[in-house]
Structure formats: structure tokens, C-alpha cells
């Protein structure tokens, strides 16, 4: 008995037939849709099979599942050649090419453990290029990271490890972010504590000319390579109302700073400049090493060559090179030191390198009575001063101060009439609000602003931002073009570009070169909220220490004076004779004992008292010094943590041979020995009495064999060329054995083993 009436039965049958046909049609359509021509990955698999006949080509969809990263990636369905060596070159489609730099990129990041999208982004599950790369999917938040943006992903795991070999753009950005003081206004989770990038303004009234202060706030100039005061009213001259705002606000800010400025003890007012003293100061300025960080900037003022004062009239340099074209030039030094094993990005920022401010106008912008106190002890004025101490005598400090007051290359405008004490309360209060809003206290120590927070938004997850949440200003581009990259790059170039009538923006503008701006955008893209799972973060304490060491090296401007990483120290160009300048630090990790270096960094005494140039006192913390020592050591592949080097006491029998040999070689004709110089020449060399605590015996062995190879440009001559020796009878004339004897003798020159006082960090150098 049917439950339906016959007419109902008929209509259901018809419906069933209809549905059946529809089902069949849709099945056929889907089979057709998923057919040969509609599956692009089949095409790539076929092309791969042609390139690599017989190689497994995946046969269908290949899926990488990486549960810890929550990744399901089907990229290898098409990108079949990624880990196949040999598929390079333009004749092979990019889809099938081997991954660039496979040793680092895949060797250290195996596909099975990392997948693809954690670095490259895009939509891992999709199987057509447009969808997989995310650019054809309006609902996919993050398309494929193109070009240098892929480097942003490195930051996730390599947070604490800087100078990554494969990510130069990211590293540029990381450096710029720190140097330009972005952290002053924008917090970033897990970042090293920011340092104030600008000088303290706590006692600003004792230091700056008020007219100059206002003009500088209005329109600061780019004067240094690694720091920049940004423009708070950028392009104000384009709009009159903005110009008026700038002029008024800069006076309000200056009024607050001057009003709150605390008194500072200064020398007596300088009434007249003693010309002889200024001349003496000029000579000190040239010779102490001030020029490592500062330029004077007057035309011709920075031409200087420091030479040894020779008693003969030597031929001029031109006469030594005028025959290069006929006799052939010898080009750069033949015995270059060996390449470091891993490629590293340069420490030194590109472009002009003024680490400290140029001083051509310093006498005009800074009050004369300020200089002496400042050069004598910068930390007294500002405890975190970048400027190091120079251990100057009173006479030297006065002479330098006298010279600095004579540097008046610029006109300083008089202060505006409204900026006169006593300052109007309302003006001062307006200044306070402006300082808080613009975030001046992020870079400067300012009285009364100690409890103010950061002025800008936190950027810890800026890389995660959905571009559709960005405000593209009054005339936004079409939706498809509103990308994260476009917004960020524009914002970096012109922070106020998206300002509208209703939305006021406060971010100031810094001047960046194109690669720096791009680097910064890439770095920002790498800032993500979600930390990588355990086991993925590189938590190598040694790498962290090296990064810290490199950061210290850059932040303290060590490269201004010292040649390092084969980059000539900036100051070295002033020294016609290289050994009159600061020593090169290439190879320092192999040459010096870590304990000695540590102690020296904390308390740098005059290592080479015959030189004018002076290692300044940087007020490093023990952690800073540790980082530097570890960085130097690891660059030379020294064992870390380091241990003290021991040299056994020489036996009386060996000493009987060694002492006369040491005397025969006349080492002390040039070297100091136990602080005795005994020689009346300006050309001396390091104290051999320090060998035991200071030098690595292995380094000394290599140095004795061929000094010029170990330390290019050294004055130390070769005593044992090609295994020859000046003493053919001692130890059967065996040069190797004689060198060993010499090292033993050197390391036993009457000194006790190295030690350092743990509480003061001072080196316990034993005097004879």
C-alpha cells in the first residue's frame, strides 16, 4: 500500500528523476572542473617530470602538516624543485626552481619542520596561484611576502640574534628602528631596554643658547649618521597655518624646558678666549681622537694628516706614487687577513659617518662656560652621556674648552621676545602638554616628565595588522591597493600623509634613505603578537651575547676609531702613519686574553702612553664588557665561555737560554718592558711585561713567524723569515724551537698571573 496518491507518486518520481539528472550533471561538471586542464598543479608536475625524468613528483596533492606551527601547506604540490639541487638559472621556471641559498635556508630550516607559509605567508591550503599567494582572495588577510618582505619572518624566531646572514634588509630595519629612536615612542615586546637617543635637557639652560634652542626645535637638521632629531612640523612651510602652529608651539616647548631647567655647577664665566690656549686645544682636538666622532665641518677644516715627526726631510707622498703608471701599482695589500667564515652584514651604517654632532658651530650654540665641565666629565652633566670621558688634565680641559668656543661657523638667531624669564605659567603649561603629546621625553631626559608614558602606540603586533583597519586618509586608494606594505611605507616616508581635517596625526618625520625606509617597513612586518612555539626560538645565550657585543660596539661608536671587520676606523684616515692611530681590532679575539680585555674595557688605562690618541672611558657595565669580549672571542672561533690562558713557569735551564736570546733580539729597543721605556723616541711598542696577562701565546707564536700577515701594517719586523734565524747555534738553529723559547721567556717576564678585582672590575696589573 503506497502512502502516496498516484498523482503524488508521479510528481515525486518526476522530482526524483530531475534531482537525479541534476546530481549526475553536477558530478560530471565537477569531474570536468577538476579535470586535466583545470588543475594547474598537474601542469607543473608534468613539467617537473620532464626536468627530472623518473624523479618522484608527488603524484597528486602534496601536503605538509606541521602541527606545532598549525600549518597545513600544499605549496610543494606545484613547487616541486624546492629541495632538488641543480634547478637554478633563468631557463627554469621560478615555480620549479631550487630554493635560493639552500644550505642556510633549507639546511637550517627543514621544510618538514617549518613548512612554507610561516616564512613566506600566503594561503597554504589553496591550489591555484592566485588563491595560494593570497592576492586573489579578498578574505585572506596576508598574501605572499614578496621581495625583501620575506625577511620579516626571520624576526619571529631570531629575536635576540642580530646580523642574520640571510636577512640584510631586515637587519637594516632593526638598526634604523633603534638608531632613530622609534622605541622612544613605540613599545615593542621583548626588545632590549631602549636608551635615550637625545641629550639630557635637565640642565638645558646652563648649556644651550636659548635662541638656538628654539630654532632647533622648529627645524632640526640631520647632522649625524646614527641619530636624528625628527621634524615635528614637517613641511610646515607648505601651509601657512601649520607654519604659525610650528612657531608658537616651539616657543612653548622651549619655555617649559628653560623654566624647568635645574642649575648646574659650571666653571667661571669665560670672558675672553686665550688664543694660545685655544691653539693648544686645537692640537689636542686633532690628536686625542675627538675627530673619530666629530667633524668641524668648515671648508678645509677637516683636512688633516697626522704624521710622525721625522727628523729627515722625507720625499713627499706624490713622488712615491708618480711612477705607478709606468712601474705598475701593487694594488691593495696582498696578504689580506683570512675571510671570516660566515658572511655578516656590515656593522657600520652606510653613508656619511658622523657619530657625534658636528662641531663647526658649537661655540655659537653652546654657552662658553659649559665646555670645560662637559669635556672633563660628561657623565656629571648627564649620567647616560654617549660622550665618553677622556681623563683630561685641568689644563687639557681648559685648552679644549677654549678651542671649542672659537668654533662659530653659524649665526644663531636671537631668542624670540616672548621667550624671556620669568616664563608665563600658561605658556609653560602649554609646553608641558606639547612635550607629553609629541613624546620629547622619550628621547630626552626632561624635568617633570619622568612619569610620562610613551607617546605613540605599541607596535608589538604591528606586523599582524589587517590593512583594512588602516586609515588611508581623505583619498584612500582602491580597496585592492590598500595593502599593509603600501600603508607602512607611506607612513614611514611621510608620517602625516594620511592626516585629515578630523584625524590629526602627531608622528614626526625622520629623513631616511630609501633602503633604510624599506628596511624599517620589513622590520615592522616582522613584529607579531604570537610567539613561535617552544623549540623554534633560537635561545642561544652565546648568540645573544654576541649580538649584545655588536650592539655595544655600534652604539658606543667604536668603529669611529678602530678598524674592525676590515672596515677602516673613521679616524684612521687622519693618520699618515697607521701606528699613530688607534689599533685595529680585527683579530683582537685571538690576540688578547679575555680577562685582560674585560678589565681593560672597564678601566682603560694608557696602553700606549707614547700615543696622543687616547682610549676614552665609556662607562661600560660589566655586561657590556662581557658582550664585547665574547663577540671578539667568537669571531676568532675561540672557546666560549672563555677560560684563563695558562703558561707554565719557565725552568731555570730554559731561562738561561731564553734570557740572552731575548736580549740578543733587542726587543726592548722598541718595546716597553715593565713600564720602563728607557728610550727617548716617539716610536714605541706595547709593554712586553704585560704579555703574560694580556696576550694569547698562540697568537704570539703566529705573530713572531710573520708579523705583517697577522697584523697588516704592523711595524714589528720579521725575525725568522723562511725559517731563518739570527742565532744559528741556539737550539741547533731551529727557528720553531727558538720561537717557542722566546714565547716562554716573554710570558715569564717577572710578572704574576692575571687577576681582576671582582668588586671594582679593575685589572690587577702587577708592577715590577
Amino acid at each position, binding site marked *: 500500500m503506497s502512502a502516496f496518491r498516484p498523482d503524488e507518486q508521479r510528481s515525486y518520481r518526476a522530482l526524483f528523476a530531475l534531482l537525479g539528472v541534476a546530481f549526475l550533471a553536477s558530478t560530471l561538471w565537477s569531474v570536468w572542473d577538476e579535470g586535466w586542464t583545470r588543475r594547474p598543479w598537474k601542469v607543473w608536475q608534468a613539467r617537473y617530470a620532464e626536468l627530472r625524468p623518473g624523479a618522484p613528483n608527488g603524484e597528486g596533492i602534496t601536503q605538509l602538516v606541521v602541527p606545532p606551527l598549525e600549518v597545513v601547506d600544499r605549496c610543494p604540490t606545484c613547487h616541486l624543485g624546492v629541495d632538488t639541487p641543480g634547478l637554478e638559472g633563468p631557463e627554469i621556471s621560478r615555480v620549479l626552481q631550487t630554493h635560493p641559498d639552500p644550505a642556510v635556508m633549507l639546511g637550517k630550516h627543514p621544510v618538514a619542520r617549518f613548512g612554507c607559509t610561516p616564512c613566506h605567508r600566503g594561503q597554504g591550503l589553496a591550489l591555484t596561484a592566485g588563491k595560494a599567494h593570497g592576492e586573489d582572495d579578498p578574505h585572506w588577510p596576508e598574501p605572499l611576502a614578496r621581495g625583501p618582505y620575506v625577511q620579516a619572518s626571520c624576526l619571529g624566531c631570531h629575536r635576540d640574534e642580530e646580523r642574520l646572514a640571510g636577512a640584510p634588509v631586515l637587519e637594516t630595519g632593526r638598526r634604523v628602528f633603534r638608531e632613530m629612536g622609534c622605541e622612544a615612542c613605540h613599545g615593542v615586546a621583548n626588545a632590549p631596554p631602549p636608551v635615550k637617543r637625545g641629550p639630557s635637557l635637565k640642565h638645558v639652560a646652563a648649556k644651550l643658547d636659548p635662541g638656538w634652542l628654539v630654532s632647533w626645535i622648529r627645524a632640526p637638521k640631520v647632522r649625524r649618521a646614527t641619530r636624528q632629531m625628527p621634524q615635528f612640523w614637517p613641511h610646515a612651510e607648505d601651509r601657512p597655518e601649520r607654519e604659525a602652529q610650528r612657531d608658537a608651539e616651539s616657543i612653548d616647548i622651549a619655555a617649559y624646558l628653560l623654566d624647568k631647567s635645574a642649575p648646574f655647577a659650571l666653571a667661571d664665566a669665560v670672558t675672553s678666549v686665550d688664543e694660545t690656549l685655544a691653539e693648544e686645544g686645537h692640537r689636542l682636538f686633532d690628536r686625542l681622537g675627538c675627530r673619530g666622532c666629530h667633524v668641524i665641518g668648515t671648508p678645509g677644516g677637516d683636512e688633516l694628516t697626522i704624521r710622525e715627526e721625522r727628523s729627515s726631510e722625507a720625499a713627499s707622498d706624490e*713622488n712615491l706614487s708618480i711612477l705607478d703608471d709606468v712601474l705598475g701599482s701593487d694594488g691593495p695589500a696582498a696578504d689580506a687577513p683570512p675571510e671570516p667564515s660566515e658572511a655578516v652584514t656590515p656593522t657600520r651604517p652606510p653613508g656619511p659617518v658622523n657619530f657625534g654632532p658636528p662641531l663647526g658651530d658649537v661655540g655659537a650654540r653652546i654657552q662658553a662656560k659649559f665646555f670645560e665641565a662637559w669635556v672633563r666629565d660628561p657623565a656629571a652633566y648627564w649620567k647616560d652621556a654617549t660622550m665618553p670621558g677622556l681623563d683630561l688634565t685641568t689644563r687639557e680641559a681648559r685648552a679644549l674648552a677654549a678651542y671649542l668656543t672659537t668654533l662659530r661657523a653659524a649665526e644663531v638667531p636671537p631668542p624670540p621676545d616672548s621667550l624671556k624669564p620669568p616664563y608665563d605659567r600658561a605658556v609653560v603649561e602649554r609646553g608641558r602638554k606639547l612635550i607629553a603629546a609629541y613624546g620629547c621625553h622619550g628621547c630626552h631626559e626632561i624635568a617633570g616628565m619622568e612619569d610620562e608614558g610613551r607617546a605613540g602606540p605599541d607596535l608589538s603586533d604591528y606586523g599582524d595588522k589587517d590593512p583594512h583597519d588602516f586609515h588611508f586618509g581623505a583619498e584612500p586608494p582602491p580597496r585592492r591597493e590598500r595593502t599593509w606594505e603600501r600603508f607602512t611605507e607611506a607612513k614611514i616616508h611621510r608620517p602625516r600623509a594620511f592626516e585629515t581635517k578630523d584625524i590629526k596625526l602627531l608622528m614626526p618625520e625622520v629623513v631616511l634613505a630609501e633602503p633604510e625606509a624599506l628596511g624599517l617597513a620589513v622590520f615592522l612586518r616582522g613584529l607579531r603578537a604570537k610567539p613561535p612555539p617552544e623549540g623554534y626560538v633560537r635561545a642561544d645565550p652565546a648568540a645573544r651575547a654576541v649580538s649584545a657585543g655588536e650592539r655595544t660596539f655600534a652604539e658606543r661608536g667604536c668603529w669611529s676609531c678602530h678598524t674592525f671587520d676590515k672596515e677602516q676606523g673613521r679616524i684612521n684616515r687622519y693618520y699618515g702613519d697607521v701606528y699613530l692611530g688607534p689599533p685595529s681590532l680585527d683579530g683582537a679575539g685571538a690576540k688578547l686574553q679575555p680577562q685582560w680585555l674585560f678589565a681593560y674595557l672597564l678601566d682603560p688605562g694608557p696602553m700606549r702612553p707614547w700615543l696622543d690618541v687616547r682610549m676614552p672611558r665609556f662607562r661600560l657595565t660589566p655586561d657590556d664588557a662581557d658582550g664585547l669580549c665574547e663577540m671578539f672571542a667568537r669571531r676568532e672561533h675561540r672557546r666560549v665561555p672563555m677560560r684563563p690562558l695558562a703558561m707554565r713557569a719557565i725552568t731555570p735551564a730554559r731561562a738561561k737560554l731564553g734570557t740572552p736570546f731575548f736580549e740578543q733580539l733587542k726587543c726592548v729597543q722598541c718595546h716597553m718592558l715593565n713600564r720602563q721605556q728607557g728610550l727617548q723616541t716617539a716610536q714605541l711598542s706595547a709593554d712586553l711585561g704585560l704579555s703574560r696577562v694580556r696576550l694569547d701565546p698562540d697568537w704570539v707564536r703566529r705573530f713572531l713567524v710573520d708579523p705583517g700577515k697577522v697584523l697588516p701594517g704592523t711595524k714589528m719586523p720579521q725575525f725568522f723569515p723562511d725559517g731563518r734565524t739570527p742565532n744559528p747555534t741556539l737550539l741547533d738553529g731551529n727557528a720553531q724551537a727558538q720561537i717557542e723559547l722566546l714565547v716562554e721567556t716573554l710570558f715569564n717576564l717577572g710578572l704574576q698571573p692575571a687577576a681582576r678585582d671582582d668588586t671594582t672590575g679593575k685589572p690587577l696589573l702587577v708592577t715590577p
Partner: protein
Amino acid sequence: MSERRGVGLSVVLAMLAWGSSVLAYEGKAVEGGGTVTGAARFLGHAPAPKKLEITKDHAVCAKVPKYSEVLIVGPGKGLHNAVVFLDRVKSGKPLRAGRASIDNRECRYEPHVQAVAVGTEMLVKNSDAVLHNTHAKLPNSDVFNYGLPEKGQVIPKKLTRTGLIKVGCDAGHTWMSAYILVFDHPYFAVTDTYGRFTIGDVPPGKYNLIIWHEKLGKQVKPVTVTPGGKVELSVEWK
């Protein structure tokens, strides 16, 4: 395969032979060679050589007073220690690299200026009972830097690169200096105290004669050498 390799090898060898014939000096018998001779003179006012201040090792170095050798004008205003040579001669009389020496004697170099052929074995000597280091530099690289602590010590060094080598002592004897010019052909001479020089066996042709002096710089004189001829010229500085 091996045949093809053989062909490749001979091509490479032929190219090398051709290349070296173009680039390197070729020594052969010179027929009808001419002579370039003359004198260099300094016509200006030559101040008496300055007495050098000895700042170190007086016992050895200050035994006899020392005078600057930077500009020595001899009889007849002859310019001593100028190096005279033909520019980039590609072939001519055989190049003989023998031995030469530079001696640290009484804290000066003997000789002060010399010119040698590439391949010469330079004997670096110390005749003083003090430590001398003999640091020889091309403009951009070290040639050698030997420490000679012993009187009578000799270290030989083969000079393998052409160029102008400046020699100095870093062991505190700041006044010591010498020059060694290394040539890849044999057509060079150093002027004597009268300023005279002679360069013989020059294949006939046109040349540039270059005269270099450590203090005065250089001069270039075009010369034409005829078969068996003698070119006499005077080079003057004011």
C-alpha cells in the same frame, strides 16, 4: 674526448705564449743598439744638506755626523741619486737579475737609491751592533720587514714585483730612508755624483726617457735612438 682536450690545451698554451710575448719583456741580441747618455742637473739654489738629528742609539748612530740625502747636488750642479729609465721597453738586451744589497751601516742605508731588475736577490744586511729593522714598502703593500738584531746578519729576499719601494727603519731610527726601483727591463741607470748616466744597447726607436728624483719628482723626455747612434741630453731642474 682526449683529442678534444689536447686541442683545447694547445689553444690555451698558444694563448699563454702569445699573451706573455705581448706582456712580458723579451730579451734578445740587439743589433745596431744605440746609447742614451747625459747628465741631470739641479740649477736652483741647493741649500747645504741638513744635519740629521740622531735621537737614538747615539753610540753607533752618531759616531760620524749624518746629513740629509734627500737632495745631493754634486760638482757642476750634477744631481745625484736620480733614477733614469726608458719607459716600458718591451724587448731588447737580456734582462739579468743578479744580486744587489742594501746595508744598514752607521744607521743609514747604503746605497740610498738603487735600481734593479725584477728577480734580483736583495741582500738585506746589518753592519751595525744595534737592532735595525728594514721595512720595504710598495705604495700599498709590504715587500719585507726584517728584524736584524745581529751585526753582520744578512737576509736574502728575491724582488718579484716591479715598483718603487721605499725603505725605512721602524726601530726608532726615523731618519733612515732609501729607495729601490724595480724594473722589468734592463734600461735604467742611477745618476752619479756628477749627475751622469748612460744607458747602452738600446734598440733603435722612439722612447720616453723618465727621470725620477725623490725630492724633485719626475720629468719625461722623448728620445729617438738611431742604429749605433748616441743620444746626449741634459735634464735640468730649477
